[in-house]
């Protein structure tokens, strides 16, 4: 291709003017979300960073610059490390089961059977129930005296437990309710992923001699890998942000066995009125979630296939 050299500078000036015009035309469309993000995300984030560098009095009025002192406190505090450990366990107990159960339910709901829509609705219904409602429901189910779980265990001749008040069982119990809440979301997303796999691939695999197991291993799983990565990344983020169910079910107890980071932030800020330290914890949590998500994407490069 040949270009007339004399035309170039003029064109460039024209293109600057044109991109300015395009920006002017685009800004009314972008403005609403910029404002919303600014008010609810960017400003609070900047404010948290700022507060992380300042110590405050219990009423949050006087702010004294303390540099990285609070961040150092957070990172060296054994309480924080413990809540990080609890959060990690919580993530493990929730992400893996919800992904596996979601996959299983999605595979069931993907069958072409009469009335399958009813089951798709049931399997995905937990996505529509709020954390508070689900937690209260599970509070009753897990109640050691009148709860259904202990009743069933007892009927089956199995040992019962005080699920939410024994340090050994509190975290798994809260994780179990969280898995139940996550399943709806996981099922919907994985089902959508399944429906995107062309039927012809299964037919080709069948003609190639693949039975059901091999079809699942060699067609379904690879095609589903981006979806599974998405579900597990979102699951980890959910786990690190969980608050409602812990607040309602255990309030971080017993013996801090369910004090995840967000609950510890809440306690620091709104019970101990130590806003500065809470902000520092929040920022550390943000960095941890960011690193974890990046690590998941890097680790996934080996087994995720994007079409």
């Amino acid at each position, binding site marked *: 291709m040949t270009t007339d050299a004399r035309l170039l500078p003029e064109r460039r000036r024209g293109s600057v003017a044109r991109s300015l015009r395009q920006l002017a035309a685009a800004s009314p469309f972008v403005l609403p979300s910029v404002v919303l993000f600014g008010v609810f995300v960017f400003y609070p984030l900047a404010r948290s960073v700022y507060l992380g560098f300042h110590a405050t009095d219990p009423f949050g009025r006087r702010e004294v610059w303390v540099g990285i002192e609070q961040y150092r406190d957070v990172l060296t505090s054994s309480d924080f490390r413990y809540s990080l450990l609890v959060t990690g366990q919580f993530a493990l107990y929730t992400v893996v089961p919800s992904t596996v159960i979601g996959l299983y339910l999605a595979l069931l709901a993907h069958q072409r059977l009469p009335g399958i829509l009813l089951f798709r609705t049931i399997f995905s219904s937990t996505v529509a129930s709020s954390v508070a409602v689900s937690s209260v429901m599970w509070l009753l189910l897990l109640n050691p005296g009148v709860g259904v779980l202990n009743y069933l265990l007892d009927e089956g001749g199995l040992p019962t437990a005080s699920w939410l008040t024994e340090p050994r069982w509190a975290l798994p119990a809260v994780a179990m309710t969280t898995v139940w809440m996550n399943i709806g979301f996981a099922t919907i997303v994985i089902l959508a992923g399944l429906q995107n796999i062309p039927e*012809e*691939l299964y037919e080709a*695999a069948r003609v190639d001699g693949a039975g059901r197991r091999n079809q699942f291993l060699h067609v379904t799983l690879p095609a589903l890998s981006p979806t599974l990565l998405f579900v597990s990344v979102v699951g980890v983020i959910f786990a690190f942000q969980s608050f409602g169910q812990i607040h309602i079910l255990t309030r971080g107890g017993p013996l801090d066995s369910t004090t995840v980071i967000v609950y510890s932030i809440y306690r620091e800020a709104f019970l101990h009125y130590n806003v500065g330290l809470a902000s520092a914890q929040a920022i550390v949590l943000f960095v941890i979630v960011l690193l974890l998500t990046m690590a998941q994407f890097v680790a996934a490069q080996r087994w995720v296939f994007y079409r």
Partner: protein
Amino acid sequence: MSVRFDRVSKAFGDTVALSDFTLDVADGEFVVLLGPSGCGKTTALRILAGLEEASAGDVYIDGRNVTDFPAHRRDIAMVFQNYALYPHMSVYDNIAFGLRMRKTGRQQVDQSVRDAAGLLGLSELLKRKPGQLSGGQRQRVALARAIVRRPKAFLMDEPLSNLDAKLRSQTRLELIRLHRQLQSTVLYVTHDQVEAMTMGQRIAVMERGLLQQVGSAADVYARPANLFVAEFIGSPAMSFFRGDVQETDGAMSVQTPAIRFTLSLEQSDTLRSAALKEVVIGARPEHIDLAESFGEEGASATFPAQIDVVESLGSEVHATLLLDGRSVVTRLPADDPPHAGETRRFAIAMAHLLLFDPASGRRLP
């Protein structure tokens, strides 16, 4: 491997896709199932592959009833219209997949994959993913995946329909060579009569779930079994004239509003024994000619007609005439072609006329 469909029917709800379909395919034969979309050709193929269950009837492979066999136990290979390559696997793994599923040894797999890839010119592309290939290359991977197992039969479902015209005719030749080399049975589905005529040793013409005619390309072209086959096969299509049967002094003729056809003795006998009042006459474009170049001898009818459209193909010319308000297409030599708008005299060759029963659509023998 021989294949036999024995009175196979398939219904999807109230829709009958295939009805009482019976077809024998001999070992090593290349048979094309040809018909318009929705005629049941793909359904027949999928039933043979085991991807669809027959509602009635049986399917035999090598004399063995495989009606209830699942797809992976039938030892056949299929090439899909959209290729259906596994998008996350390399070309090598795509080709190897079928062998691995059948627990073939690693060295054997490698040897077979490289042989198949070599045969189809894919040796340089083995590490690529399907997404990195052109349409023609993907098509060849799909073929390699089919031939690598040396299956008893190949089923091909419109494998060329996603290729451009040039690549399609190239691949057509490749497929013919491949069939000659491998000597395996091929069942090929297409709606394209050029593909069917050039590749099929026999063609099975289908419509609305019913088998219309089975025969060689020359056979279905020259002796179509009924009006559907006559109209479907051949491009430009055959022209039809419906008229009253008349007999004067023992000689039969057919009178249409514009033309009077005189018939040969043989044709007269046929018509007499059929005892019809009306008949449909079919004439191929190449059997309708300018009267001046045709001469009077052997003409069944001569008539004046206005020329509506002239299409030049370089080597020949297709002229569309208006006759009784209907279009009649003729195929004429390219030198000194007539012009649109002219009125000229045309002649129809008697020897090539086809007679059809208007009620049943069947050709009179």
